[in-house]
């Protein structure tokens, strides 16, 4: 009993030390002084809260038709003449509360951005490891595809895929993964190749360790910092790509409006002076992506300045 | 009568970094006469290069010249504006860098890079500049100079590049050339050629040369006088013959003993124990004390002041070595 207590304490001390080490590191020192990075973190936290508990706080579920009344349509934001505080950011042409729509929309945008990033990083890592580890034909096949793909803008490839596959969140995730894997694959492949040459892999082989195990065990920690930077920035890029596709009418379905689709819906009524229906969703996209990029930019400068 | 060209007085150049202040140059003083070759010697990290760059005021953030005077022809460079310094750089004082592989701009031809100095600092027209470039390349021993004008740096070998750099440094006939480890990056066989060339050109034109090097052997052949720097401070200064044959400071003695000698076969090459101290936490007393064979209690507490031992020979040590090379 005492023994386990001691071990528990040891672990606790270790944890504390690690936290202390982190708080005293140059990384954290620079973070504390980097105002954009802090603002970015705050924005991201706010959006994550909005996506998780936001729906409980807002007045309306914009998908529930029974909560929407047409007579509330075209209400301007609360601080403008004719606005009410019931609809702080106004309503759209259907009488939907813009703030509620934005909260639900952020949820979808964030979900797509994060899931797309996770899928891309997973598939990209696997393919990169395969290319670097097996080499030869597999390597040149994967990398040739990556090269060709990189000479075309990602948005255009995604647009092409979506125009054939049709609207839908699942299709969007597929499209984003298909354009997003390349950067991970390249990073991981490069690291695998340089690691393969190192002596300890050879040494491991001599004593009979499967080099596959050595490589995965050593490479992944090595490329982790680069991956974190890439992944952070990619979430922002994906949110923008999704928004663009949805704006063009090939993104999310109308029943699950993301921020991008909300902007598009607002576009149709912009010329009749209903500016708030498109302004606020767009502003939220900008804030979210700006927040992610401010943090990502700091991470890149600190962790891996060589990445562009 | 010798004429004084440069006088550095109590120069302090500090770097303000995340971890604290690095006193790269900490109270360095020296004089340089016209036509004289002065060596600045010391281990890497001793503040030699920073001293050189300070004279041209090419110190970048987070570095800063904190204190001191740099009198060049009687004018204090420390007080000069950037605009005034630009007129001095290249025309009155020029510089030769350590690594010829990286000192030339890869995208410009040799002619462009030498001619640029003439373009900025003289009134020559294009034809005159071209002719001067040819003459300069010829002076520094580049064969077929005319054919080489349009070459790019990558088409030159390291030694050739350093010759081209010397040509650029000489182009506007400066009064002072600062050479920062000019041969360290070159092959041993080429080192001697380049040094001989530099000495010849400098003496011909009565130009002064400040030769920065970690290599006492280089200094011995080249210079008239030398100063020994350690951790940003002057340890010893004097005529080169005195320094080589009768070093007074234990550090100079240590440096000399770590040079391999062909005629000396019996002894193992000695070295100075330990490493250059962490620049953030310099020792309290003499900076060299922790590595000094002759360290006494006083050395650990009190910082020694530089003093003249005899005419022209100054040292910063509480217990200088006697003239015979043993301790007092």
């Amino acid at each position, binding site marked *: 009993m005492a023994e386990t207590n001691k071990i528990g304490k040891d672990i606790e001390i270790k944890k504390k030390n690690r936290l202390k080490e982190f708080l005293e590191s140059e990384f954290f020192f620079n973070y504390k002084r980097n105002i*954009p990075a802090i603002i970015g973190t705050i924005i991201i936290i706010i959006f994550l809260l909005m996506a998780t508990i936001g729906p409980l706080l807002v007045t309306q579920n914009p998908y529930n038709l029974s909560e929407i009344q047409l007579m509330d349509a075209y209400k301007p934001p609360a601080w403008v003449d004719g606005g009410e505080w019931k609809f702080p950011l106004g309503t759209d042409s259907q009488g939907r509360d813009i703030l509620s729509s934005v909260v639900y929309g952020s949820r979808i945008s964030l979900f797509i951005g994060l899931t797309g990033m996770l899928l891309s990083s997973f598939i990209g890592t696997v393919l990169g490891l395969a290319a670097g580890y097996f080499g030869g034909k597999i390597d040149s096949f994967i990398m040739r595809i990556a090269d*060709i793909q*990189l*000479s*075309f*803008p990602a*948005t*255009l490839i995604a*647009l*092409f895929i979506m*125009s*054939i596959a049709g609207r839908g969140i699942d299709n969007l995730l597929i499209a984003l993964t298909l354009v997003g894997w390349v950067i991970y694959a390249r990073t991981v492949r490069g690291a695998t190749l340089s690691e393969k040459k190192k002596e300890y892999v050879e040494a491991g082989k001599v004593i009979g360790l499967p080099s596959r195990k050595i490589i995965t065990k050593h490479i992944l920690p090595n490329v982790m910092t680069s991956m974190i930077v890439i992944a952070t920035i990619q979430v*922002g890029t994906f949110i*923008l790509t999704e*928004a*663009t596709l949805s704006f*063009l*009418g*090939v993104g999310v379905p109308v029943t699950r409006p993301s921020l*991008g689709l909300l*902007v598009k819906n*607002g*576009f149709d009524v*912009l*010329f009749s002076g209903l*500016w708030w229906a*498109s*302004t606020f969703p*767009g502003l939220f*996209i*900008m804030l979210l*992506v*700006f927040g*992610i*990029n*401010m943090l990502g*930019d700091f991470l890149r400068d600190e962790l891996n300045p060589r990445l562009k | 009568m010798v004429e004084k060209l440069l006088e550095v007085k109590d120069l302090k150049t500090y770097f303000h970094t995340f971890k604290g202040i690095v006193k790269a140059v900490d109270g360095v003083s020296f004089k340089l006469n016209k036509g004289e070759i002065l060596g600045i010697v010391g281990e890497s990290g001793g503040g030699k290069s920073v001293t050189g760059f300070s004279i*041209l005021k*090419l110190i970048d953030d987070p570095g800063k010249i904190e204190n001191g005077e740099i009198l060049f022809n009687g004018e204090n460079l420390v007080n000069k504006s950037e605009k005034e310094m*630009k007129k*001095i*750089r*290249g*025309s009155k004082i*020029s*510089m030769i*860098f*350590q690594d010829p592989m*990286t*000192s*030339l*701009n*890869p995208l410009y031809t040799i002619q462009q890079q030498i001619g*640029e*100095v003439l373009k*900025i*600092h003289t009134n020559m027209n294009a034809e005159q500049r071209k002719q001067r470039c040819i003459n300069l390349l010829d002076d520094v021993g580049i064969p077929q100079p005319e054919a080489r004008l349009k070459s*790019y740096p*990558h088409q030159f070998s390291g030694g050739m590049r350093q010759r081209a750099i010397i040509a*650029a440094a000489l182009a506007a006939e400066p009064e002072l050339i600062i050479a920062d480890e000019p041969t360290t990056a070159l092959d041993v066989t080429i080192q001697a050629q380049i040094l001989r060339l530099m000495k010849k050109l400098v003496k011909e034109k009565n130009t002064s040369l400040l030769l920065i090097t970690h290599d006492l052997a280089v200094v011995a052949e080249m210079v008239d006088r030398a100063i020994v720097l350690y951790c940003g401070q002057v340890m010893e200064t004097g005529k080169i013959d005195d320094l080589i044959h009768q070093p007074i400071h234990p550090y100079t003695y240590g440096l000399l003993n770590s040079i391999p000698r062909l005629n000396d076969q019996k002894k193992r090459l000695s070295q100075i124990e330990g490493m250059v101290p962490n620049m953030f936490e310099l020792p309290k007393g003499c900076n060299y004390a922790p590595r000094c064979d002759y360290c006494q209690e006083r050395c650990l507490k009190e910082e020694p002041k530089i003093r003249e031992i005899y005419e022209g020979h100054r040292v910063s040590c509480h217990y200088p070595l006697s003239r015979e090379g043993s301790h007092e």
Partner: protein
Amino acid sequence: MFKYITKRLYQMILVLFVVSIIVFFVMSFTGDPVLMMVTPDATQAQIDRARTELGLDKPLITQYFIFVKNILRGDFGKSYVFKQSAIKLIIERMPATLELVFVSVLLSIIVAIPLGVFAGAFPNKRSSKTIMLGSLLGISLPNFWVGMMLIFVFAVHFRVMPSSGRGEVVNFLGMRISIFTADGFKHIILPAVMLSIQSLAILLRLTRAGMMEVMKQDYIKFARSKGVLQNSLLFQHALKNALIPVITVFGIQIGKIIAFATVTETIFSWPGMGKLLIDSINRSDRPVMVAYLMIVAFIFVLLNFIVDIVYTSIDPRIDLR
């Protein structure tokens, strides 16, 4: 040099070949084009006849070779909607797009390079940090939204700029160009601003990164020790070196602008090939989509090729012989 160019040309053809395979097979596996062509009440016999006419009853491989053969003859089929040659529709609209892209690229270069040089040369200045934050905002902006805001502010609210269309066009070298007329110039400003923001920000960041890297180099310090003046130090010695990595990604940047022109053209009703693509997607007008993709792929490959040649000719260290 000749050998290098032939090698690159061979690579170009290979890429286009791969793209044609992907486009063809992806298109073949999704939806039945015959159903798009016949009237809803067509009989089975009519459908079969249409299928034979289109060659869709043949094996896929044969169809692919017919597809390639037709492409090489410049025949991408007829638009289902316009009942016209798809390639002709795109070529007709290409000048409008290229004009918009050209102005945007020019705008980004003119703004991004000086700002990038400044921010890279003096990274610690407050103004540099502001520029960098601004460029970060630039890449964070949903650009369709920026277009809409521009329309709302300048066209709807202040009514100083036109909100859509291309304005008056004149003939120039056989193309219909609008920028040379006052009206056309007015029409292109907003879309060009919208389209240039993102690439401007990216170009600025790349230039700055390149400058920061170059400013650390010995040859910059050597140039300074020669007394080189500030402007020539930054814009000649440093910028030329800093631009080499920038140029390598410039092709893909222009490609991005062409891709995003689809969005801009949709918002500003700019009669270019991008708007045609979006309209065709919404109407499932497959031949036009295929034609657009193949042409744009060709443009991209060509751009990358040109960029490579420019890059190799700027850097004397690359010897192609």
